[in-house]
């Protein structure tokens, strides 16, 4: 059965290997350039506040070459798309195409039970899917390591330098790609078994996978652990800002980083008064346009009026627990889908 699986899967396997090799060659060719920019930036030996400026100029340099910035985005895109592509082209046709073309009558009438047929196919192709996706991720993580180190040194977030908790990076580095690949593949197989036609199964696979990938960082991942809360003084670094709206000046505060907590994932932030209750309007004392248009003055005025910024966040130390939790969640979903496929294949028959 393993030999048959290989015979039927080898075209896809060779395609995947070629894609991996091309990706590796591209990154290997451009990686040293990025590393040399990092070495020249002096970031490796910096201390304290000086790092921020060095990181800023490093990022500017990476941006200026254009090609590295493009490669970074393309690389992340490929890693994020790989599970979906696998689910669509390896998962959905696995059972659906057999049923559609009638070859299920051939496959399932040899001296091999359906359970074994499915077990071998799922194992061989599923493990390949996970290995390919994680391989892409590891290669890109190696390539992008200088950017990650710059972020870890407390560099202000920019287009390229972003914390590990940022959606794009959390979902493409670490071990989450393993979970995504396993889940997308199992989802494709299940959709195919249910719908029995390849193209609609592919469409459903894509829709469900995309929906979950959007829902995960928005509504599920923030709750893997109760968020930490803190209240800090408003400061220009925390992006205090007032906006003039109808019926009074509305006040919003958006924090992008937390002093003393580099790499923390900020879930929400907003102004509160001295009693800790949320406020939504600029205190009357600070509404003069001379104050509002000068950020340090505005912050000072807010502070004197007792307005502070409340932030809920996940500290950077929870990165790996969150990686494990998310991967485990996706693997558990994948196993549940696979279990359903076995039951369905044996109970409903063709």
């Amino acid at each position, binding site marked *: 059965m393993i030999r*048959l699986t290989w015979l039927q899967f080898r075209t896809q396997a060779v395609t995947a290997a070629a894609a991996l090799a091309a990706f590796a060659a591209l990154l290997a060719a451009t990686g040293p350039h990025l590393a040399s920019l990092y070495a020249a930036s002096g970031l490796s030996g910096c201390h304290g506040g000086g790092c921020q400026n060095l990181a800023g100029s490093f990022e500017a340099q990476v941006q200026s070459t254009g090609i590295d910035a493009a490669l970074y985005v393309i690389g992340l895109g490929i890693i994020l798309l790989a599970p979906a592509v696998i689910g669509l082209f390896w998962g959905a046709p696995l059972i659906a195409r057999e049923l559609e073309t009638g*070859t299920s*009558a*051939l496959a399932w*009438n040899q*001296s*091999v039970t359906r359970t074994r047929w499915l077990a071998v196919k799922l194992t061989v192709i599923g493990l390949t899917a996970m290995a390919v996706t994680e391989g892409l991720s590891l290669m890109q993580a190696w390539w992008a390591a200088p950017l990650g180190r710059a972020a870890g040194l407390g560099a202000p977030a920019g287009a390229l330098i972003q914390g590990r908790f940022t959606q794009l990076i959390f979902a493409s580095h670490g071990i989450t790609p393993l979970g995504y690949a396993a889940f997308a593949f199992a989802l494709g197989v299940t959709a195919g078994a249910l719908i029995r036609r390849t193209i609609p199964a592919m469409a459903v696979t894509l829709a469900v996978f995309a929906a979950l990938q959007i829902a995960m960082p928005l509504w599920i991942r923030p709750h893997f652990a109760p968020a930490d809360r803190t209240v800090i003084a408003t400061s220009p670094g925390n992006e205090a800002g007032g906006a003039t709206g109808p019926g009074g000046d509305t006040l919003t505060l958006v924090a992008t980083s937390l002093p003393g907590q580099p790499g923390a994932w900020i879930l929400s932030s907003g102004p509160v008064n001295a009693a800790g209750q949320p406020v939504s309007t600029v205190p009357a004392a600070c509404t003069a346009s001379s104050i509002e248009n000068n950020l340090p003055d505005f912050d000072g005025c807010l502070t004197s009026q007792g307005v502070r910024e409340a932030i809920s966040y996940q500290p950077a130390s929870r990165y790996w627990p969150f990686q494990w939790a998310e991967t485990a969640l996706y693997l558990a979903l994948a196993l549940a889908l696979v279990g359903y496929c076995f039951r369905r294949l044996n109970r409903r028959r063709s």
Partner: protein
Amino acid sequence: MTAAIETIGLGKQYRRTWALRGCTLAIPEGRVVGLVGPNGAGKTTLLGLAAGMLAPTCGTISVLGEPPAAGPAQLGRVGYVAQDTPAYARMRVADHLRLGAWLNPGWDGELAGRRVAQIGLDPKQRAGSLSGGQRAQLALTLALAKRPELLLLDEPVASLDPLARREFLRGLMEAVAEHNTSVVLSSHLVTDLERVCDYLIVLVASQVRIAGEVGELLASHRRLSGPRRDPGTLPAGQAVVEESHTDKQSTLLVRTDEPVLDPAWTVTPVGMEELVLAYMNPANDIPARRPRLGVAS
């Protein structure tokens, strides 16, 4: 002697419609059985259930004394060629034979190779570029080389031209004679089966209209023609299968185990096609006589 296929109250429902319902029959072992019936009679469903491709909604079915597709051993004992004789379009003929060898412990590689050569298939050719007849032959080769005890063929010749049809059936008969395999093949055309079957089952709307050895069936049916007469006046031993009347003449197809002695009748023997058509015709109210199912004792 166990039955090749035995069903009791077998039914298969697809959403609202029943493809097969209340089907009770026994198909004897060691014979070439023709399963005939109009489209929609449930032949394909019955064979699919026997091959384990489908799961019954109700009733029971046993194949060679075991539930269908019960395990690898049972799967190996039954060969199945589905209606459209499927093959993997992108795999070569030789790959199909390797598939068979890998997945079947009882694989007869010599038989498979010999058949492929005989049919004239190019092992390097992809199955997708085979003609319908060649693909049917390939599917049959795969099923035969498993060395099954029972071979299920669902309308295997339906899509073939007359020449390919003859070739296919000849190949089938050679292989079956060599290994004494039981065969059940379905068709809605009697002419396909006439030459190969020694046992016949007529299935209409899931019900067995008649079943028996071809020779016995032909011997026990007569066509009577003579002056117009009410069929009710026939002797008790003569059951009317089909009747047609003109003003002056009556023509009857009767089933009887005794010779027809009434000199008013012109008695002629019945051909298989004629017989099957009479039993398939829904207009004919077949006498309520339990079909002799059966496993010859």
